[in-house]
């Protein structure tokens, strides 16, 4: 069962095989997606027609490559914008939340904490729908009352960012709170004792301590926003973020350019993962 307890050879080998099968199961779909981005065929399916880079660099229809497909490139740009805004906003609020829940005592704190966790247990589709309903209620009321249409409250990128912000903040709060809990408060006292005001103490001592968590939460927030589908689907307007654009093409049936986009996403995610691993590393000593 554990290495210090002996077990039969058959048991150990079959256990190992199971784990191997599991990892094959885990990795195959990704390998397949990546492999077919190099297949010289109009469809991402068998037979294998040889190697090509057309799906990255092809310049003309029907072999339009990723780097010349303006619609896809534009949707990547949209996703980056939304993810950047969402990440920054949720990090700012999550940091406030961490200080509120770790440092302050107030009546109803537990209730507020449970409420803060709620976005994690609301299905993404419903979160999107509820924000859609509420924002249009507000927008309609505004239009009737003041005869002015607030464009931002109609489906579009502002709502998409708000919807993602609503649940990503919870995740960022959990990450940052966990780090803040490890912080020795006397360090802030020491800073004040050495002449810092309370805000200076937080800025010069506490925030540098939180930096690895802020970076880690930032990377997770960015990816979650970039890859979000459910909430985004309900709130999207005319500008489609990447996941929506890919989904539409996937349903229509598309050339392997989608595989090329997928490879790009994998590379991007891997880079972000490496960044977050490296920033966390010095803490491990």
């Amino acid at each position, binding site marked *: 069962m554990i290495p210090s307890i002996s077990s039969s050879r058959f048991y150990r080998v079959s256990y190992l095989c199971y*784990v191997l099968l599991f990892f094959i199961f885990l990795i195959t779909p990704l390998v397949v*997606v990546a492999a077919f981005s190099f297949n010289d065929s109009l469809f991402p399916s068998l037979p294998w027609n040889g190697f090509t880079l057309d799906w990255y660099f092809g310049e003309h229809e029907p072999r339009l490559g990723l780097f010349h497909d303006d619609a896809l490139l534009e949707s990547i740009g949209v996703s980056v914008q939304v993810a950047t805004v969402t990440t920054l906003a949720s990090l700012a609020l999550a940091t406030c939340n961490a200080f509120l829940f770790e*440092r*302050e005592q107030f009546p109803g704190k537990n209730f507020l904490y449970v409420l803060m*966790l709620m976005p*994690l*247990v609301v299905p993404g*589709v419903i979160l999107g729908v509820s924000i859609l309903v509420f924002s249009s209620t507000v927008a309609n009321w505004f239009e009737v009352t003041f005869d002015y249409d607030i464009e931002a409250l109609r489906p579009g990128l502002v709502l998409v960012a708000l919807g993602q912000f609503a649940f990503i903040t919870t995740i960022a709060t959990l990450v940052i709170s966990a780090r803040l809990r490890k912080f020795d408060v006397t360090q802030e006292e020491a800073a004040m004792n050495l002449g810092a005001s309370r805000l200076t103490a937080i800025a010069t001592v506490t925030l540098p301590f939180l930096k690895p968590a802020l970076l880690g939460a930032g990377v997770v927030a960015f990816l979650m926003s970039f890859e979000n*589908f459910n909430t985004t689907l309900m709130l999207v307007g005319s500008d489609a973020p990447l996941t929506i654009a890919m989904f539409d093409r*996937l349903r229509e049936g598309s050339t392997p350019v989608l595989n090329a986009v997928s490879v790009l996403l994998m590379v991007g995610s891997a880079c972000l993962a490496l960044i977050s691993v490296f920033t966390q590393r010095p803490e491990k000593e």
Partner: protein
Amino acid sequence: MSAGPGGSFSRTQYRLGFWLLLAPVVLWLGLLIILPHIDMVLVSLRERVASRQYEFSFSNYITFFAEPLYWNTFVRTAVMSIVATLLTLMIAFPVSFYIAKVLSGRPKMALFILCLIPFWVSELVRTYGWMILLRETGLISGALQWLGFIDQPVELLYNDAAIMVGLIYTSMLFMVVPLVTTLDSLDNSLIEAGYDLGGSSWHVMRSIVIPHAMPGIMSGCIVVFMLTLGNYLTPTLLGGKDSLWFTEQIYTQFITRFNWEQGAAFGILLLVLSSLIVWAGLKVTKQSFTRVMS
């Protein structure tokens, strides 16, 4: 002093800081979570009688119960989500145990990170991978032909099994991570003591390992169940037109038919179902929500 440093600061300055911290979280939860859900309940309880004329009514909920299609889709979604959650747990537990308890040092970290990799890639890409594998002209069909098991291409996509595979695959991460974390915190000497006192493998597993891992099992199950129930992408892409997933009904009502009242009612029903099952799961295993979530 639990309020932290600054006890000697003037009271007003201290309170001001507190309100400045409290305001954003209240605005966030109020404007983006609570009010939207209240508004959705209100919308679900009205019926359009004329243009811009609404009145209070339960008709949207009555429609749900009266129409077998909606009702069946709902039950089917719930049952399949539960099955997917249990299967995920059963597949993930041995692997998590292997990573947490059998391996150590570098291989352990490597395998754990390998588990995380699919999480870093969009769900869309993962599902796309399964489509390429399962479709009629896909890899598995091709492999089966090449091996001689079948003599013509077979469509493996667009059925419940395909949906199930996709759901399990997508959810695996959210099960493995909490399981590995809790199992890792179990002291090996407890397992050794169990054996030393004469327990069998099965008995040690049941009376020592599983109780210890319960918070991880619960939090994994809750997250997986939630994600499965609320999934839209996987059933739509792998299940095709007849996937009959409840989120698709919500989407149809809102976006295709523009019947927001009906869609809101569906949303509330799904939310109630998900909350009920999460609550029941916590009650049965006697875990607390805040502990499981964080």
